[in-house]
């Protein structure tokens, strides 16, 4: 269906080629997963399939890409519309119209398809993706998961034989991601569409993949069956890491397969750790480096932040409903919950910039909303969902200097933090040219320069690969060792399992659960990390914890 024949692709002004001499073939009806670190060329590979690269992006293409027998060199994306459907990373900025059914029909209108056929296809897609309830709604009122499904539907109405998706679940909570993936599976199984998708969170999709394209980061690409390639892949979800640790052969990809072979491992672990979580030592739930924090907590006043009866209302909608929250020093708290459950509103209200309709917040004995901005950042900081909003200077070095000046920190503080978060970042680079992960690192460094007592992060792991998440984790751990407190909202169960000590679950503006990460995560059906699901009833959250318990050194 799709074939790459000795493809080399280089962007204009780029020193090296993104893809170097890549040859691969994706047969019809497969679900193919593109795997690689940030910047390894995943998006480029996807754009090559429908000709957006090089027709829209520019750049030099050598070799041939053919889709359904058509060469993308001679066929621009619009000529491939009935062969390849393309769904980009941010569905809402790809919408052309303002209502769901108009959006579904847009592609067909452009292709000049007759009205009766159009209606029939819109109905079919509505059924296929379960959009009946929202078909007349304005696009801007949809939730992120619904928007993603509409974007998929809009690509599908042209009846393409290939569907290409760039990170379709990265902005979604676990259950919305499941919905989108279920819709994709239905397409692969029932309609016979070939699906090619790139995804950072492999734990969500690896089990459904028929084949994997692994990008090496040096321009090379290998393709093959998932089990074979994942055995040596530098990026791997917890299930694969656990499989490698336990030496399972062949490597299980789905939780079900893993549970079936995990019996002996469970028995070995059960001898070492009691089964009931509450009596278990906390050691394996707390990140190893954070252990001295317990001693620290005793020495310092325990609470870094108090919030009492906090309310946030927008018109008639209640986003945060009378929440009481205390953040302790030396603790990473994760805020979880569905999209739209009030996580962001809570974070902004705590920081003091966002609206508050009632209740009070104290950091130490000060309400942060009464402080001028340049003083507030030495007490409480927030890293918003789009970190790039905070950056405006010409170079990374200038941003760092400005940050030192504002935070009254000794010169070099910000760049030192940045060096640890993202080693080897060019200080002369323009912030706009950085990758998503590098930009987050820069903003985090800027915000941490004033050594604030409370750090709030809104969805920090979006678009980060496993390596970047690991570095983020180590900087946060170090920061709480200095007596600070971290509150982060996240959909990323695996990141939370490895980073947080405490988990707070929100639903419709109320706190539903609040407790140690280990108890909350293992008890939850939606939020349980893979390791916990495989090893249940033995309570482990992370591969690292299993490794420690087994006494294996990595």
């Amino acid at each position, binding site marked *: 269906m799709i074939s790459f024949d000795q493809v080399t692709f280089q962007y204009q002004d780029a020193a090296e080629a993104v893809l170097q001499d890549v040859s691969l073939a994706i047969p019809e009806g497969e679900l193919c997963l593109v795997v690689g670190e940030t910047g390894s060329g995943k998006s480029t590979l996807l754009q090559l399939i429908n000709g*957006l690269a090089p027709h829209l992006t520019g750049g030099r293409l050598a070799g041939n890409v053919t889709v359904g027998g058509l060469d993308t060199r001679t066929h621009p994306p619009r000529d491939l519309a009935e062969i390849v459907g393309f769904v980009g990373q*941010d569905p809402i900025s790809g919408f052309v119209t303002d209502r769901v059914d108009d959006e579904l029909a847009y592609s067909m209108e*452009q292709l000049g398809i007759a009205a009766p056929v159009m*209606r029939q296809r819109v109905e079919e897609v509505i059924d296929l993706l379960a959009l009946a309830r929202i078909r007349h709604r304005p696009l801007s009122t949809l939730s992120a998961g619904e928007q993603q499904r509409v974007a998929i539907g809009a690509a599908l109405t042209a009846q393409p034989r290939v569907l290409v998706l760039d990170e379709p679940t990265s902005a979604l909570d676990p259950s919305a991601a499941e919905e989108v993936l279920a819709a994709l599976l239905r397409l692969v199984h*029932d309609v016979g569409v070939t699906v090619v998708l790139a995804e950072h969170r492999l734990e969500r999709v690896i089990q459904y993949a028929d084949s994997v394209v692994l990008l090496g980061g040096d321009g090379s690409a290998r393709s093959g069956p998932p089990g074979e390639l994942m055995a040596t892949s530098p990026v791997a979800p917890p299930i694969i890491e656990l499989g490698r640790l336990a030496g399972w052969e062949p490597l299980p990809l789905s939780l079900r397969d893993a549970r079936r072979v995990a019996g002996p491992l469970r028995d070995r672990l059960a001898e070492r750790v009691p089964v009931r979580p509450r009596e278990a030592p906390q050691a394996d739930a707390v990140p190893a480096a954070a252990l001295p924090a317990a001693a620290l907590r005793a020495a310092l006043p325990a609470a870094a932040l108090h919030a009492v009866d906090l309310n946030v209302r927008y018109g008639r909608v209640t986003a945060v409903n009378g929440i009481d929250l205390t953040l302790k020093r030396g603790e990473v708290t994760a805020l979880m919950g569905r999209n739209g459950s009030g996580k962001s509103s809570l974070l902004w209200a705590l920081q003091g910039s966002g609206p508050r309709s009632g209740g009070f917040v104290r950091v130490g004995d000060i309400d942060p909303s009464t402080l001028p*901005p340049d003083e507030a950042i030495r007490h409480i900081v927030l890293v918003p969902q789009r970190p790039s909003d905070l950056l405006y200077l010409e170079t990374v070095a200038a941003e760092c200097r400005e*940050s030192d000046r504002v935070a009254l920190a000794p010169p070099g503080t910000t760049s030192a933090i940045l060096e640890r978060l993202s080693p080897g970042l060019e200080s002369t680079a323009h912030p706009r040219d950085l990758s998503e992960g590098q930009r987050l690192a820069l903003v985090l460094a800027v915000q941490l320069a004033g050594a604030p007592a409370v750090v709030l992060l809104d969805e920090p792991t979006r678009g980060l690969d496993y390596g970047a998440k690991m570095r983020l984790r180590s900087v946060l751990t170090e920061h709480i060792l200095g007596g600070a407190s971290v509150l982060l909202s996240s959909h990323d169960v695996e990141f939370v399992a490895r980073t947080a000590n405490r988990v707070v679950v929100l639903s419709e503006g109320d706190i539903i659960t609040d407790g140690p990460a280990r108890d909350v995560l293992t008890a939850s059906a939606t939020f349980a990390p893979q390791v916990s699901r495989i090893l249940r009833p033995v309570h482990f959250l992370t591969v690292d914890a299993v490794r420690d318990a087994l006494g294996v050194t990595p």
Partner: protein
Amino acid sequence: MPTRTDGARTATRTDRSAPPLAAVGRGVQRSVHPVAWWVWALGVAVATTRSPGIVSSAILIVALVAVVALCHTPSAFSRAFPAYLALAAGVVVVRVVFYVLVGLKSGTDVLLPLPRIPLPDWAAGIALLGPVTASGLLAAVSAGLALAALLVCFGAATALTNPQRTLRSLPASLHLLGTSAVIAMTLAPQLVDSWRRVRTAQALRGRSLTGRKAVAATTLPVLQDALERSTTLAASMDSRGYARVHHGSSRLVLALLLAALIAAALGTYALLDGTGPRWLALPLLASGGAAAVIASIVASRRIATTRYRPDVWRWRETVISAIGVAIAALALAASTLEPGVSATSAASGIAGLSVTFTVCGILAVVPAAIGGQR
């Protein structure tokens, strides 16, 4: 895995067993063709310009508000209607304030004996304050209200029709114009959103910037955001087949449009300039119009896009636009029908009560009965 697949397959089958076309008829709420609402609103607008006074203008405004209240579909544009009303009220207030401050005061029926403040020579002819008379005040309110009614007409038309749908009923030759307008209308609120977002985010960095630096700090991320959005949108439109069935512009269309333009210019000149040959005006204007229409048709033929759910013109649309035309015709004929009522004589007497305009008002409300969602 296999079990899950089977489940999904049966589910799809049952979903599909429902005939898709039946669902279309049941689910779609058919709204009135936007062009019909515009014709109606323009008709009322013509009437407001001929309104003899306060009562007539007020009747027309009440009719407009009633129709909007009964027929609007909830959207951002219909939510903006109260803003139009507030703006209209503002116009009346401003008109009255101007009358009191600098208006020309005449008449003897003094309401408020304010002193006249003389201005220096260079502002001769303008008098500050002065005695406020009842007739003068009525005239000011009447003039303000007529302008306010015109504003409300426009507000009613936008509230009743989604401008995006209106643009979609443009002929295909204006397709590109319509597309860019629709995109601009979608992007504008997003731009405002991102500007607001960046402003709040900047405060998080602990700076209160002022002057040029502050402008740069907000504009840069906002522009960057807009640029990224546009690129994404372009990619999305391109991969969905945009412009695939456009066959480029044609020389014929260009020539016809040029001819239409020249004919229109010459025709207008002949019509307005007394020394020119008057008899040329009509044929020139008519042929110019014809050339424009032919150009539009030819251009439309070159674009083969189709339309999903096009707005259809049925009896409701005919009735609503006929009412608009009737209102305009009645208002224009009012001076002949009722010679006693005119804008000048109204100020002193009954403040512009007129049988013709009351009929206009009643006619204007009629669409409320038939223009709701079906």
